[in-house]
């Protein structure tokens, strides 16, 4: 009995040793640990951040021959996990909300450009949109801007401090530019989930809601006498971003129809000769002390994955626009984006 026990123990120890060495060897040509934890800035496993991250991380794990797992821990635990991970065991995937939270002064959002290393961008969710009830008197964003200029209060349901608010700020800024002093007529009704924003529209408690093409398109297909029927008035993505989506568009709304709701067909001025646009982009974040060789390794692996071309098909099927930029390019691009929105927000704050 004792002999069997000893042999069993030996077998267990040997298997563990083999497992550990195999795990360490897996990433030999790349200074990444064999097990990579990818935290995301969302607690939802049904949302776009998780969906997008899992598409990319699965392929990255295959390419690097490592184990990688996406953990939907949320913003603060995500930043905290990243801060603790000096050896690159944990990386983060998040979207523009990572720096917008800081610009809006939300508690706990650091300046990601100084506190972390900004990694590669991977995709755009082109669906950030604004909607009104189907029987709304406002046919376009221009109508809304004019109404605010005329002294009418326009209530907009948003989730504060992130992607949802930036379009609201742009609208307010547009009113400020055209009708200085009237921007106070654009009023935010701060709320949470998409369901809450929809509900406020159903209740008639707001005039406009922030939504998305993915979540709200079917509501735009309902007959006008349905209490739930909505209409797009603005999609914040750039024209070229929407042009890269599938021709079929989303649901019963074709790409051509979606293009009617983006600039230049819809104008929300940001400067005298420039309309505001916003692409919700997803990117990696690394600990400040992450080994540059590991960052390069992820960049190279992603470059290969995107060169192969299959991931683009998968992303497009889920209404994402593939958008790979290696770390350095992504960092300077996102910092520029950050500075652009910083100007709008600080102008509004006076």
């Amino acid at each position, binding site marked *: 009995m004792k002999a069997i026990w000893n042999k069993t123990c030996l077998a267990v120890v040997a298997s563990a040793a083999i497992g550990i060495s195999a795990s360490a060897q897996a990433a030999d040509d790349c200074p990444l640990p064999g097990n990579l*934890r990818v*935290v995301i800035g969302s*607690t*939802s*496993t*049904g*949302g776009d951040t*998780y*969906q997008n991250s*899992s598409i990319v991380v*699965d392929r990255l794990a295959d390419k690097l021959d490592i184990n990688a797992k996406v*953990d*939907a*821990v*949320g913003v*603060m*635990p995500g930043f*905290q*996990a990243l801060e603790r991970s000096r050896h690159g065991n944990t990386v983060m995937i998040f979207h523009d909300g990572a720096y917008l*939270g800081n610009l809006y002064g*939300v*508690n*706990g959002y650091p300046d990601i450009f100084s506190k972390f290393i900004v990694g590669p961008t991977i995709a755009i969710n082109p669906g950030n949109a604004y909607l009104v009830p189907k029987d709304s008197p406002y046919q376009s964003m221009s109508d809304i801007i004019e109404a605010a200029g005329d002294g009418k209060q326009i209530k907009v349901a948003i*989730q*504060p*401090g*992130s992607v949802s608010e930036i379009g609201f700020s742009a609208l307010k800024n547009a009113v400020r530019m055209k009708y200085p002093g009237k921007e106070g007529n654009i009023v935010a*009704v*701060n*709320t*949470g*989930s*998409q*369901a*809450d924003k*929809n*509900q*406020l529209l*159903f*209740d008639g*408690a*707001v005039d406009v809601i922030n939504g998305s093409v*993915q*979540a*709200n*398109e*079917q*509501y735009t*297909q*309902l007959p006008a006498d349905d*209490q*739930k029927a909505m209409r797009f008035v603005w999609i914040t993505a750039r024209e070229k971003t929407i042009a890269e989506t599938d021709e079929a568009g*989303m*649901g019963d709304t074709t790409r051509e129809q979606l293009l009617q709701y983006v600039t230049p067909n819809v104008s929300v001025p940001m400067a005298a000769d420039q309309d505001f646009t916003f692409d919700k982009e997803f990117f990696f974040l690394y600990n400040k002390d992450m080994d540059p060789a590991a960052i390069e390794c992820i960049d190279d692996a992603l470059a290969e994955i995107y060169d192969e071309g299959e991931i683009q098909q998968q992303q497009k*099927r*889920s209404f994402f626009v593939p958008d790979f930029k290696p770390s350095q390019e992504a960092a300077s691009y996102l910092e520029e984006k950050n500075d652009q929105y910083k100007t709008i927000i600080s102008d509004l704050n006076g």
Partner: protein
Amino acid sequence: MDILSHLTPMFFALIAAGTSIGIIFGAIPGMTATMAVAVCLPLTYAFGLENGIALLLGLYVGGISGGMVPAVLINIPGTPSSITTTFDGYPMAKRGEGERALKIGIVASVFGGLFSAAVLFFFAPVLADFAIKFSYVEKFLIILLALTVIASLCSNMLMGVFSGVLGVWLSLIGTYSITEGGNGEPRLMFDFMQYYLIDGFSLLPVLIGIFGLTTVLLDAEKGFKDETGQGPISLKGGAKFRFSVFKGQLLNLVRSSSIGTFVGILPGVGGSAASVLAYSQEKNFSRDSSQMGKGAPQGIVSSESSNNALTGGALVPLLSLGIPGDSTTAILIGAFTLQGIQVGPLFIGNNLDTWYLMIIALLAANVLMFGIMYFAIRHIARVIEVPKYILYPLIIMMCVVGAYAINYGIMFDVWTLLIFGVFGWVAHKIGLETVPLIIGFILGKSAEVYFVKSLESYGNYSIFFTKSPIAMFLWVLIAVSLAFAIYLRVRNRRQASVES
């Protein structure tokens, strides 16, 4: 019909596998149906939509049902929605009726599950249209109605209400999150606590701390040696399970299942509110509720039928509006989007085959859950015969693992478990009532969000009374519920004094 081609042995095997795995997840304290579905979500890539949905719905039904097992046998709710199952399940287990209590729970669960599946099938679009009549104001009043259960459950009114308020206070620690439309500012804590408490205390670690760890500490204080009389609870003795126990319970079953289905339809209100509401309504309106809380089958019936009825209810807004009814159905949206299927008000019409398959999967999952649990429960219930000095270390280990895993590896959740375990022990010593406290904790955050958002959206306090006929009706229910609780308390006190 295309649909028949999807009804393969694989389809049903995946429902069975999902249900079994879900039961295991539900039965382990700290593991939930949501976690089971989240863990298996990536598998839907491999299985395709139909088979993937079969697996996920099996996990959902199994996960909700499995929560009753530790609730009855060891007084730890496996999932938050089985909290009310502990009130009567554990007292029954203590008098040797663990198997009976579990079988009552299983039958009630399958009734609730099938009831809600039928409601989903026949009335989904109509109910979704009705659900959108419930704004922040009405949802706040539903939470308030659920909170009135505190008046029914506490043994000392003043201490019970105080404990409930303390629970609400504890739930508000952290930030008023921007993801709920708040300002993101921390409150009710010192600066040095912000690192840990910025998202507040997580529900599951608090729940299993107060129910699980506190029980272990209280028993440890007494000592576990067999000779002290603290040996294992016997399965023998006590009444045997007979289906006749459901005689006179039809109203309870239908009312509780309706409450569960209805609460499921309202996005964000949550499963715990469903079982708490159903339990309080049975307590207030049944002919004889004097034994509730002491091991009455009717308590298990109301709790389990309502929490399983939530499954079909929560699918109503998902499939009719594209809005998840609870955290688990939020993950199901992920399964659809991963397959490139859009959910929204046109989902059913655009995806009739998928819709029928979901209904079949839901029915099959409930029937399989009944088959698996009813016949396996005799063996599962034997866990109660394991001596506590062996069982309790295992429970603590499972609680710690569950607390660590619930938010994907947050160590502070383990500390939360331990803190609330000790807090529960202290509460017991100083006479605080833990059940009202935990109900206050579960419902407090939603109450705050709906209250503040009602005021932000409509601007004045009178809106709570004048918003709609539904709001007025809910006020009537709140008043009646409170009046009944007070009436019952006075009547019981009089009876007690007459008897003495």
